[in-house]
């Protein structure tokens, strides 16, 4: 509980210190990623604006910026924080383990992730700049250096960065899997695991499977680029006036491999947030999670079905139309367990009295965005409708709500909630509330109107709307509103940063177990034993919870805390 982050050790294997480093890494990535998104938003509305240290944007610059924004956000923010930083911070605590199963592998994974970020950012300084083929890097654009600026050295750096990231993600998730399976403390049976741990179990399994495939795909693409193979290149390619060597490959192979990774990736970044939402809703309504087993079942079902829906990203890419129908069905099927979880959460809100603390508000925000973005999923799952909406701003709206905003809000919920573990202090409530409400309104203001642009048919990846599509001119007021909202959204995050810095010194002392939580990361004992369910909230008004480390029915909480854990259980 009082393990504050002390003296700096470069190669520490302490999981909490590693967690802090992952948080810093995520912060660097999110700051750069957000600034890039503002560059795009400003350029779309005022194309003539000259940016400091750079000047005006060329069309290829816009594409480089989208690519780097997407890559930073997906990998280095919404994979690193929920899937690496948070488990390092609390997973051993929640299962009562002293250490991770493989502390050194875990530490190595952090440094490989850092190297991966450095390599990615180096692409900005490559001779022709960063790659322009988007975060999905479809070949042949990504396979042939002559296909565009940034597709030479920049693209190579991107691929090496992704390969390193895959290695780190596989290593770190293997460590998590083994830790969950093998290092649980006495009494921590499967039925007593907090739902966050169940989420990490499923998301780690997905990470190992999905990132292995992405690693293979990246290796094949590097081979196509440098070893003369043609996994992704067909014959008869003419690029930039040059006839390319002939091959027997197909870009379709990349599309399948990439999205076999890409869809589970969405769940990797959102499942931990779903587990956290369940925990926070239980804590801040002081009621247990109803249907614990159903929630576990839904989480596992989402993970399993999530491996079989990737085709919904490539309905119109020349896949057999029957395959499109099949992938549409699996996608609508996965919406059922997701809806079940949402219904459970809404039900939980109406059981006890809700305590509107900052972490709770962010959990509500998560829920709000998860619903808002999730509801357009079944629309996009229908090949007949997606064949109009695919790659328009409707999709940009969908994934920024369901993945980006839901993901970021759950990250904020986690930070506000677990902050006392690191500093012994709470974050300032008033600043937290301001941060929440401004972010909520600005996020809706940014991403909701994008649906309208998408319905109008406005494609993604367009720096400018000129030529025949100047017919989108009536969208200019909408576009302008989106940009103002995005600026407000980014500005609101300054309140958060101030709060983090200020509260570390001046925040009110949290004491032990400030949220009166039940799960073991808040246990005052170094070697706890799990003695009860994860969410034993409720009961009498003066004693409305019984922590997992406490013997059930052992009188008032604070007496129980002083008792040494009995060796027998």
């Amino acid at each position: 509980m009082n393990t504050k982050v002390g003296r700096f050790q470069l190669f520490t294997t302490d999981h909490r210190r590693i967690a802090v480093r992952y948080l810093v890494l995520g912060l660097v990535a999110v700051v750069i990623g957000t600034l890039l998104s503002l560059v795009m938003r400003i350029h779309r509305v005022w194309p003539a604006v000259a940016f400091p240290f750079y000047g005006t944007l060329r069309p290829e610059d816009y594409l480089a910026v989208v690519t780097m924004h997407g890559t930073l956000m997906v990998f280095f923010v919404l994979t690193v924080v929920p899937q690496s930083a948070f488990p390092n911070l609390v997973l051993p605590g929640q299962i009562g383990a002293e250490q991770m199963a493989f502390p050194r592998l875990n530490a190595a994974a952090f440094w490989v992730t850092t190297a991966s970020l450095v390599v990615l950012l180096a692409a900005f300084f490559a001779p022709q700049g960063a790659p322009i083929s988007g975060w999905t890097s479809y070949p042949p654009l990504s396979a042939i250096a002559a296909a565009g600026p940034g597709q030479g050295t920049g693209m190579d750096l991107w691929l090496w960065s992704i390969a390193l990231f895959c290695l780190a993600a596989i290593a770190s998730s293997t460590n998590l899997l083994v830790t969950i399976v093998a290092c649980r403390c006495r009494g921590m049976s499967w039925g007593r695991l907090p739902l966050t741990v169940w989420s990490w179990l499923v998301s780690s399994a997905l990470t190992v499977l999905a990132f292995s495939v992405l690693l293979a795909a990246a290796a094949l693409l590097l081979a196509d680029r440098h070893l003369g193979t043609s996994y992704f290149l067909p014959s008869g390619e003419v690029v930039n006036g040059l006839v390319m060597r002939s091959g027997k490959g197909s870009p379709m192979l990349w599309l399948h491999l990439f999205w076999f990774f890409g869809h589970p990736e969405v769940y990797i970044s959102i499942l931990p947030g779903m587990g956290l939402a369940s925990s926070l809703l239980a804590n801040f309504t002081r009621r247990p999670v109803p249907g614990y087993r159903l929630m576990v079942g839904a989480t596992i079902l989402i993970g399993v079905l999530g491996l079989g829906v990737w085709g919904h990203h490539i309905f119109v890419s020349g896949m057999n139309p029957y395959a499109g129908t099949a992938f549409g069905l699996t996608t609508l099927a996965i919406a059922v367990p997701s809806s079940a979880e949402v219904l459970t959460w809404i039900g939980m809100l109406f059981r006890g009295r809700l305590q509107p603390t900052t972490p709770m508000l962010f959990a509500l925000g998560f829920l709000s965005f998860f619903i808002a973005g999730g509801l357009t999923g079944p629309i996009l799952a229908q090949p007949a409708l997606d064949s109009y909406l695919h790659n328009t701003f409707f999709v940009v709206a969908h994934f920024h709500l369901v993945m980006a905003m839901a993901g970021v809000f759950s990250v904020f919920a986690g930070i506000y909630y677990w902050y006392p573990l690191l500093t012994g202090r709470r974050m300032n409530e008033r600043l937290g509330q301001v941060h929440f409400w401004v972010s909520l309104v600005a996020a809706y203001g940014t991403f909701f109107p994008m649906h309208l642009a998408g319905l109008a048919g406005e494609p993604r990846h367009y720096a400018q709307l000129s030529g025949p599509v100047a017919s989108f001119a009536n969208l200019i007021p909408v576009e302008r509103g989106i940009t103002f909202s995005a600026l407000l959204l980014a500005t609101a995050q300054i309140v958060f940063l101030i709060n983090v810095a200020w509260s570390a010194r001046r925040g009110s002392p949290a004491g032990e177990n400030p949220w009166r939580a039940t799960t073991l990361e808040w246990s005052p004992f170094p070697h706890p034993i799990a003695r009860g369910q994860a969410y034993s909230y409720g009961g009498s008004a003066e004693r409305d919870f019984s922590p997992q480390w406490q013997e059930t029915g052992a009188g008032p909480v604070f007496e129980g805390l002083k008792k040494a854990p009995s060796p027998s259980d």
Partner: protein
Amino acid sequence: MNWLPPNGELHGITMDAMLRWNLAAVFWMFILAQILLVVALLRRKPATDKRTKASSRRAFLFAWLLPLLAISGLYARMAISSRRLWAARREAPASSRPVEVEVTGVQFQWYFRYPGADGIFGTTRAALVNAPAGNPLGLDPRDPHSRDDIVSSLLVLPVEQTVEIRLHSRDVIHGFFIPGMRLKQDAIPGMTAQVRFTPVVTGEYPILCSQVCGLGHARMQAHLRVVSQREYRDWLAVREHARLAAESPGPGESQP
């Protein structure tokens, strides 16, 4: 919902109607859910727990199971209706002989090729591609079927006749997107995609590229002009004439 561009395609009418009820359904579900969140936040209720077995069973049934079944029913309904439309658009065989046009995407242009009087597309070769010399698609002059092929950068189609597009790309992946025809299909190098549609309203429709393809992606646009059958025949006849009257039998590009 008036955000959609005007529709000019036969199945587009069904698609618009479907999209409309889909959006309405999820919009009201969204509003309902957000109202519940706000109510939960504002609600003040003493924190006592007086639940009985029966009341929690009732809550499970009415607040969880029945809504979940209703939502699943909605998803099933979506799956069925969209399945019908998808089958009609992408799987059904052509009812009559369609107009055939070959569409080729290259960085950063769309080219439209009509087979000419013989109704057969001639051979093309990558090595012969030479846009400045008027042969952007690499038509092989030795193939008699190529001689009458018409290459255009404007897509002209007759109204009320089914068109079959054979979609290619010569370099990178492009996305062939005609919002007004509610049609989108990727052009993948090494593959030919066949898609059909039936314009039912004359007029001009923008054609865009919907798959990022390089620095000129956003300006990779063209026009579809849907005209009466008569105008279409005239348009073709003029171009065929020019093509055959050309001095050398080498292929040339006719600009609209």
